[in-house]
């Protein structure tokens, strides 16, 4: 039985996380959402290290990364993902508060699949997340899982 891959959400701000989770939930996605609080935790999850040592191995359907996070920011996580052979195929969406050109360019240089600025208006935000979830978790064909 094929299990839907989870969505990894890296977001330090609890409110943002809650609203994002609300928006995702609002979309009735079957995928499980794994929420981590910063970049270090995100990588621990991806590499099955630390508190995720015991999780079932496998890459998420998509990694949604906030940029500004404590310890390790989203761009550093992106860089780590793209430089590790076992992780580099994971679709990554940068979901950030600011339309900072520097971040935008840097992210695309490092190989992000999308860069989305969180709209201030919640309804728009919900729409955006709905589309994101729908696209990456449902429509998008994922690369084969490495054995």
């Amino acid at each position, binding site marked *: 039985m094929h299990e839907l891959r989870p969505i990894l959400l890296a977001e330090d*701000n609890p*409110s*943002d996380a809650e*609203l994002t989770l*609300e928006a995702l939930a609002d979309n009735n996605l079957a995928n499980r959402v794994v929420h981590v609080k910063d970049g270090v935790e995100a990588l621990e999850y991806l590499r099955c290290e630390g508190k995720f040592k015991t999780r079932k191995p496998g890459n998420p359907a998509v990694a949604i990364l906030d*940029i*500004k996070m404590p310890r390790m920011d989203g761009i550093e996580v992106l860089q780590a993902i793209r430089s590790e052979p076992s992780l580099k195929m994971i679709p990554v969406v940068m979901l*950030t*508060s*600011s*339309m*900072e*050109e520097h971040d935008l360019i840097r992210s695309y240089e490092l190989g992000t699949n999308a860069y989305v600025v*969180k*709209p*201030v*208006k*919640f*309804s728009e*935000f*919900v729409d955006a997340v709905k589309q994101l979830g729908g696209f990456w978790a449902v429509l998008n064909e994922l690369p084969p899982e490495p054995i």
Partner: protein
Amino acid sequence: MSNITQDLHPVKFRRFIMPAIFAIVAMVAVALGIYYSLSAFFMKDAEDKIKNVLFSHRGLHSYIQKIMHPAFYKARDNGDVVQQFYSPEIFSSSFIVRNTHVFVNEEMKKAGLPEFYYKMASVNPRNPVNIADEFESSLIRLFNENRDVREFRKVMNVDGKKYLYYAIPFLETKDNCLKCHGKRQDAPPGLQALYPGEGGFNEKAGVYRAVELIKMPINDELTMVFVLTCSISVGIAVTFMLFYFNRRLKTVVGEKTSTLEAEIVERKVAEEALRKSEEAYRTVADFTYDWEYWMAADGSLRYISPSCERHTGYTSEEFRQAPGIMAGITHPDDRDELASHLPDQQNRDQKAHPHHTDFRITCKNGEERWFAHVCQPVYNGDGEYLGQRASNRDITANKQQQQEIYRLNAELEQRVIERTAQLESANKELEAFCYSVSHDLRAPLRHIDGYVDLLVSRCRDGLDDKGLHFVDTIAASARQMGTLIDDLLQFSRTGRVEMRRESMDMNKLLNEALSLLQDSSSEQTVEWVIPDLPSVRGDYALLRQVWVNLLANAVKYSRTRDVARIEVSARQEKGEIIFAVTDNGVGFDMQYVGKLFGVFQRLHPVEEFEGTGIGLATVQRIINRHGGRVWAEGELDKGARFYFSLPV
């Protein structure tokens, strides 16, 4: 001068020929006169000598006839002498005189004087030696026939020698004479015995029976005449010539003197001019403030201005006596450059530009001074190298100022570096601040809106209308703040993004701005007036933003008009292109024009015209970054005109 002499030649020759002819003629006349005078004088003298001799002989004849003969006849009559006695040695005066003359000639010879040829010639001589030749016979006839003729003289040539021939008739035959010269039978018997022929007999009284003649050589006299004539003539000629040439000389000397005087005047004028010129040059050279000199090819000083003392402490005399001072006082680091900055003499170019170099010297008092040296090679008219002419200007004060400027510049540079670092760090801080604003300030707003939305969607039933209004207001305020933050961020970004400068078609830019604008505009009627715009250099995206903001403003503030009229124009003046956007909208009061371009400054309430007040501030920031200016004109309710300029 030589030209004048040549020109005078023919004149001088003409002037000379007439006096020369006159002088020759006069000289010939004078010489002839002298010749004849001297001849006459010497002939007379010779003649007198001859007469002297002849008259002595006559005296002797007279003595014989008048004294000796009577004395002898008295002695015969007294019987002291026999009747027949006759001796020519005693009785014949011609015999006695002829032989006396032989003795006279002997005496003359002894005294070294010329001898005289003497002859008593008769057509009827007793002694045949006295016989007259043909010429002498004719003379005897002449004297007998013309008793007035008392003498005969002639110069004659004999064997190439000149002689004076002088003859006088012999004593007239008297009765006494006939004693011996009468009839033969009447003559003394001794006489008859001695002379057998008829010679000397049969004479008649009152007749000249002989001539006495003397031939005297006159070569010496003639030579004397010739020599004297020549001498005197030559003397006179020389004197005349001397006079003539003296006069000529005086004239020539006079002419020469006046020429020389004129030359002297000329020379004096020239000398004066030269002196003045010399003085002018000397003044120019000596009263120079700079230290000037002319150094010959051998390193000796041809000239050095007295001002060298003011600059170096050494007098011009010291420099002249020891040209080595120049190198000696030059700073060791500058010596080579000063000595070698002139191009190699072999390759020097006559039209070479002056050569510059700066050098230091140590003055006599030990002070170090800086000089700006400029020199150039000197050549005479033939292109001969005569050394170099140099001028040294004291630039010690300049150098000190320059060094001060260098120091200040270095300090300033350091300060700029420090300030730039500070600015860079401030900029980084600002960037971090903006980042944090965009990221962190937006997040709570999003949260407010998100939670308000969740509240309304989940708890709508628990809220009355007022509650819903409050919640709406909270959400609207949050969104308004979000817009403000977004605008502020964009404004900040326009100041920070890296600007590219490229040439662009302003028409294309404007059209893009218009299409962006029309996407968001309502059904408002706008009459656009857009001419062909010139190309400019700048950042494409930023300038497009300028047009968008200005045109959007024009549209926004003229939307109360039935037909909005928006005109774009461009003109070039004084190195910049000025663009203007004119609308017929609500305009503004000129007293608030200063606030137009301020951040978040608005002249209209937001209920009337929406907006945050960031548009014109952004325009100003972009145009300023392009090196241009922005300004505006307007009148309340009569439209507005916004200008911006870009440098060409």
